[in-house]
């Protein structure tokens, strides 16, 4: 239960825009989006553990300086990556390090798991740095600016909203379970009892999305082809830091970037 709660809390942390105007929220959205794209490219194409760690370190420092709320989002990394990373330790063939019953951990396996976790942390930190410091309408507007098709943006938005909405439904369902099983925390039968209910809510909240779209449409969402021309300001100094970072990391990474990212 604690684990699930932590996960929910972290999902909420990504969504909530920090209204205290930090320095980062004053960098314009287009610049932040471009820097995010650079980071994501690096995350995918770097395959040196050291270079990836440096990239993560850079983001951590940025978050420490400007937006500490980002770290709440880290809590949810174990849930999604743990499930893949832990088996990987044992399943990737290679040089054995230790044995665990019939399983053998390999050096290559550990490396694959480490890469996966670091990459996830990089992605989560970078995305959260953007979403926490930028109004979502500005994020959408800058996505339009890079010519992402509207349908795609809409799906992206609804998916995001759907995840958050679903997280809340689980949260309130958990609360109602808790209120009914005080003192019987271990009772697994409650899970069985509520599993179909959660399934129903899943379907219901999915069906709601069409109506949400109606609500957005009725209030003017994406009506005209960018009628209001946005003035694009790129904060080059901010972006330059990321370009420099990219050059350094690619240098450290050495070798071919087009190698498979493993």
């Amino acid at each position, binding site marked *: 239960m604690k684990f699930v709660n932590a996960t929910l809390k972290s999902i909420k942390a990504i969504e909530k825009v920090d209204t205290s105007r930090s320095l980062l929220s004053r960098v314009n959205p287009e610049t932040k989006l471009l820097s995010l794209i650079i980071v994501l490219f690096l995350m995918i194409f770097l395959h040196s553990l050291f270079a990836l760690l440096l990239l993560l370190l850079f983001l951590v420092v940025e978050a420490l300086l400007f937006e500490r709320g980002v770290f709440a989002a880290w809590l949810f990394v174990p849930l999604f990556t743990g499930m893949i990373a832990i088996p990987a330790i044992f399943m990737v063939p290679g040089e054995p390090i230790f044995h665990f019953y019939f399983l053998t951990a390999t050096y290559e396996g550990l490396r694959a798991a480490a890469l996966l976790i670091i990459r996830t942390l990089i992605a989560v930190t970078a995305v959260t740095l953007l979403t926490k410091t930028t109004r979502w*309408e500005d994020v959408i507007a800058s996505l339009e600016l890079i010519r992402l098709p509207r349908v795609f943006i809409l799906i992206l938005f609804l998916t995001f909203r759907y995840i958050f909405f679903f997280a809340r439904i689980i949260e309130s369902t958990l609360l109602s379970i808790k209120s009914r099983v005080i003192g019987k925390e271990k009772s697994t039968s409650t899970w069985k009892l509520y599993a179909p209910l959660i399934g129903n809510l899943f379907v219901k909240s999915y069906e709601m999305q069409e*109506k949400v779209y109606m*609500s957005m449409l009725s*209030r*003017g969402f994406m009506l005209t082809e960018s009628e209001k021309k946005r003035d694009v300001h790129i904060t080059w100094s901010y972006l330059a830091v990321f370009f420099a970072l990219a050059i350094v990391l690619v240098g450290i990474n050495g070798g071919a970037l087009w190698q498979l990212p493993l």
Partner: protein
Amino acid sequence: MTNVGYSYDDHVALKNVTMQIEKGEVVYLIGENGAGKSTLLMILAALYVPTTGTAKIFGKKLTEKLTKDVEIRKKIGVVFQDPDVQLFSPTVYDDVAFAPRHLGDDANAEKMAETAMRRMNIWHLRDRHPYELSEGEKKRASVATVLSYEPEFILFDEPTANMDVKGRHEFARLLHELKEEGKTMVIATHLLGDIKEATRVLVMQSGEVVYDGAPDVIENDSKLKSLGLL
């Protein structure tokens, strides 16, 4: 609109509805759950295009293209039944400011949002997440998101369902004010209770309009009684 029908896939939700709503009318749409009120409301709001028959909204033929017409969207406001559908932004303020930002001019958006929020008494909730509000607060926020851009035609879907007595009073007062301001309104409800402001009543049953007329008839019409609506 004439002979309007609407089907979801192959389920017919609305059959042969013919009617006309004039400026300044306050129309109550009454019927049991599943009668087709929400579907009709979506058509009146120019969000759904009828699958049969034709409808005209503000003199223009309702087509898929018209549903995305800025001028039409400015004139029509919809308060959905479920606030969780209505409110989609990370903060209450963003949600209320959404329509003025998209349909109005940016310069006035902040002011219009604030005015609507103060009117609905939710200004103090501006930085809260819509999900964190109580049901009553959510409902007030939903109404504010629509009042914020001052549409002349407002549609409410089950506005007083799940409301407590105080909420219903407040809503009745708001309706009265809006009526005084000359807004045209359609209010869908399955409760016969508060239809005080009605200038006209439509009764729906299984996708058809079975009564269309003055509100006072509702109270002594034996036919309505026989329909189990009283």
